[in-house]
């Protein structure tokens, strides 16, 4: 028998979006019981690694219209315009709330909150706390969440299945990692806030926990994943590790140089105009990739591959220490380079998934009782390319929206008959028991994962081709077969990280399937989806969202209309 606990709202994921959802639900109704379920302690969540800032208008020279237009243009006109309008309106309120809760935002001399420049943003609207913004936001939210007495945390619990019966979602089956026991955590609404799945790719800024769990949970219940072909390569990752060097380096005036010391974004036409290094991420990553392909990449003795140089020397030690101290710490510790004295070698690195669980503007999915917010979701704020510093704010705006809407929704909802949900959790317990220490074929988790990483890098890189994407579709299908033959060495119930890695690999293969399926269908180039065979945008045939549905017979593809009405799609040129 599994342990059964009962709550009103169950939140899966303890990062920026999940914590914001918990606080919003608690503020709206202090009487309800909220479960916050996370596979790590909340302060380990990957929000912690975000560096550069969070966007919201703050200055007299800025406007909601300007933030909205920058965002829709950055999205290559695939963002839903009602969502973008709602987002830019809520953004300043959310960042102000965080200020009231104690976030140590950096300040101007007069004590007002400071803002910095960011890629694709037409003025300084990125709020920052030096260059550890995600860290400070996450810790502020986590610490603030502790003052609410009605948030019950399930730390280090791994959700293996959504409990769905009769077309409604009423809880989750969660494995207590420390004991190996399965629990049924029931509620009248479930909010997914588990983040993205950057670990599907080999060279990524993402931490080990970013395995697309929430996308897979929803996908397996028939909820479509939207716009999965759009994955963001951040221009500046460190060699070898892929550790993120923030876009704030360029916001503060940093240059990108090729091996001739040339500022190629200024001297050559990469479509970014006079924005130069502050162009949007998709364009800058393509520019670096082209420079390297043209033989102008920088070599590092003893390291494979070619890079560009990110040069901060002219910014000076004083400003680097005041604005970018973490960049200096990371460069020294992980690249053996002091940016005060030397340029930092970097190359484009997988960073963010624009796609995710399809939601409406209220963060609702197509499954009754299920919500999603943050990177796990695709509310269609970011379209085909996200602007830097919009995603931390997105976690707040739509995390809050999900928490509030779910709190309203449960007024008219009941768990109903518990039996079917508890039985599903018991079936999950049996499934996990069979997987733990399973002896089957000889396949190893680490090897299947490595081969998945390779297939995804080859098929869905900065530039894609029809042939390579089609091969990735086939490769992922084969890897799913191999996954069925995986054997596990660890049969212990206590903190079995091999078991968790196995479950995560299963989730990542779902994500990989959806990404490759969506990618191969889109025969145009838009935003981050740069298709060599179809190098231009094609609004006549492809101005639509893509949906991928899971089915026992294999994935099913569909389309969804883009919400326009405010800004007419135009050529994206800076």
């Amino acid at each position: 028998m599994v342990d059964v606990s009962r709550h009103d709202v169950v939140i899966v994921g303890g990062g920026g979006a999940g914590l914001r959802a918990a606080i919003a639900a608690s503020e709206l109704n202090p009487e309800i019981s909220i479960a916050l379920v996370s596979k790590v302690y909340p302060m380990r969540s990957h929000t912690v690694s975000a560096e550069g800032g969070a966007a919201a208008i703050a200055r007299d020279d800025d406007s909601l219209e300007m933030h909205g237009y920058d965002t829709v243009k950055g999205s290559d006109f695939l963002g839903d315009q009602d969502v973008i309008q709602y987002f830019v309106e809520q953004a300043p309120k959310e960042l102000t709330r965080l200020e009231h809760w104690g976030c140590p935002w950096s300040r101007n001399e007069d004590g007002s909150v400071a803002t910095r420049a960011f890629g694709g943003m037409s003025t300084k609207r990125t709020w920052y706390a030096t260059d550890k913004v995600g860290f400070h936001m996450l810790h502020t939210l986590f610490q603030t969440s502790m003052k609410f007495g009605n948030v019950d945390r399930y730390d280090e619990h791994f959700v293996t299945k959504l409990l769905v019966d009769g077309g409604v979602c009423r809880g989750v089956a969660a494995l207590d990692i420390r004991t190996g026991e399965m629990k049924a955590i029931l509620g009248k609404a479930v909010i997914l806030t588990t983040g993205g799945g950057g670990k599907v790719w080999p060279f990524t800024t993402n931490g080990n926990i970013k395995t697309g769990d929430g996308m897979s949970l929803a996908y397996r219940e028939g909820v479509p994943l939207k716009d999965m072909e759009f994955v963001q390569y951040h221009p500046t990752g460190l060699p070898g590790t892929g550790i993120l060097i923030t876009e704030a380096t360029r916001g503060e005036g940093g240059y990108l140089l090729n091996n001739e010391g040339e500022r190629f974004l200024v001297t050559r036409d990469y479509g970014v105009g006079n924005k130069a290094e502050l162009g949007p991420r998709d364009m800058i990553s393509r520019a670096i990739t082209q420079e390297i392909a043209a033989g102008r990449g920088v070599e590092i003795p003893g390291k494979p591959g070619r890079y560009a140089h990110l040069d901060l020397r002219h910014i000076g030690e004083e400003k680097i220490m005041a604005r970018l101290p973490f960049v200096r710490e990371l460069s020294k510790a992980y690249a053996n380079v002091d940016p005060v004295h030397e340029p930092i070698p970097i190359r484009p690195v997988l960073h963010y998934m624009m796609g995710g669980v399809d939601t409406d503007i209220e963060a609702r999915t197509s499954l009754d009782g299920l919500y999603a917010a943050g990177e796990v979701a695709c509310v269609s704020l970011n379209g085909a390319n996200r602007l830097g510093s919009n995603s931390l704010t997105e976690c707040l705006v739509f995390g809050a929206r999900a928490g509030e809407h779910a709190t309203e929704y449960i007024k008219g909802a009941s768990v109903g008959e518990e039996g079917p949900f508890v039985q599903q959790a018991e079936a999950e317990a049996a499934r996990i028991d069979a997987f733990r220490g399973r002896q089957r074929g000889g396949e190893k988790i680490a090897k299947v994962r490595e081969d998945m990483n390779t297939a995804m890098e080859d098929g869905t890189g900065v530039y894609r081709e029809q042939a390579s994407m089609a091969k990735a579709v086939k490769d992922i299908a084969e890897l799913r077969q191999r996954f069925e033959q995986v054997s596990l060495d660890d049969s212990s119930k206590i903190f079995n990280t091999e078991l968790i890695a196995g479950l995560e690999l299963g989730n990542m293969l779902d994500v990989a399937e959806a990404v490759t399926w969506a990618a191969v269908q889109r025969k145009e180039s838009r935003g981050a989806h740069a298709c060599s065979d179809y190098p231009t945008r094609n609004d006549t045939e492809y101005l639509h969202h893509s949906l991928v549905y899971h089915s026992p017979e294999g994935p099913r593809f569909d389309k969804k209309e883009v919400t326009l009405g405010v800004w007419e799609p135009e050529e994206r040129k800076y």
Partner: protein
Amino acid sequence: MSEKLKKTFIVTRFDPDKDEVPKTQTYEIEVEPDWKILDALNHIKDTVDPTLSHRWSCRMAVCGSCGMTVNGEPKLTCKDPLSSYGDTIEISPLANFPIVRDLVVELEGFMEKFQEVKPWIMVAKERAVEEGTTRQSPEELADFKGFSMCINCMLCYSACPVVSNEPEFLGPAALALGHRYNQDTRDEGSHVRNAVFRDEGAIFSCSFANECSEVCPKNVNPSGAIQQAKLANVIDWATSFVVKRGEDVS
């Protein structure tokens, strides 16, 4: 490619379902010269022994998951270079915590202490969003910013000579966090936290060994925070007899 080196790792193993007491296991592997300790552990887990359990995530010294004891010293293993060690390296769980399994330690005790210091802004009257942001000068920010940099990696508890003997002692990270909020100009809850600090042993059992600040990978200086907090606490306690307290804060 760079030349591979051979290293021997002596790693603590413990599964409470099978073992009475922790034991060690030795792994001899080839490593890259620029690896960190964590890279070696992940290599062992992926290619030699999938049963080894350890926590990690960000591998960029900010999530705080991968604190362990390396050759007797508490270290953040994702930032700790292999090149600073010889051919044989001993890795064990953080000291002063119960072991859950292998290199994974029990954090629940810390999480309780963390919450005890009330690490949130307390005000008599909640500010409305429409009022806009609070003014705070760069100097006022600097008074607490350093203490807000803690990643909860637990190295300081592992190094502290008081934590293991004084169960009521809140410990370096929790105290530095409480002090961080006391120092924040937006907060009005310092006398509430000071009352928590005045509980038997909560702060005054700190012996000022300074070990916490020496091992901190983020230069938070919890030892300095504790000394500042002790002084502020004595003043707060003394003035509480002569100054009427304002409205209740929450």
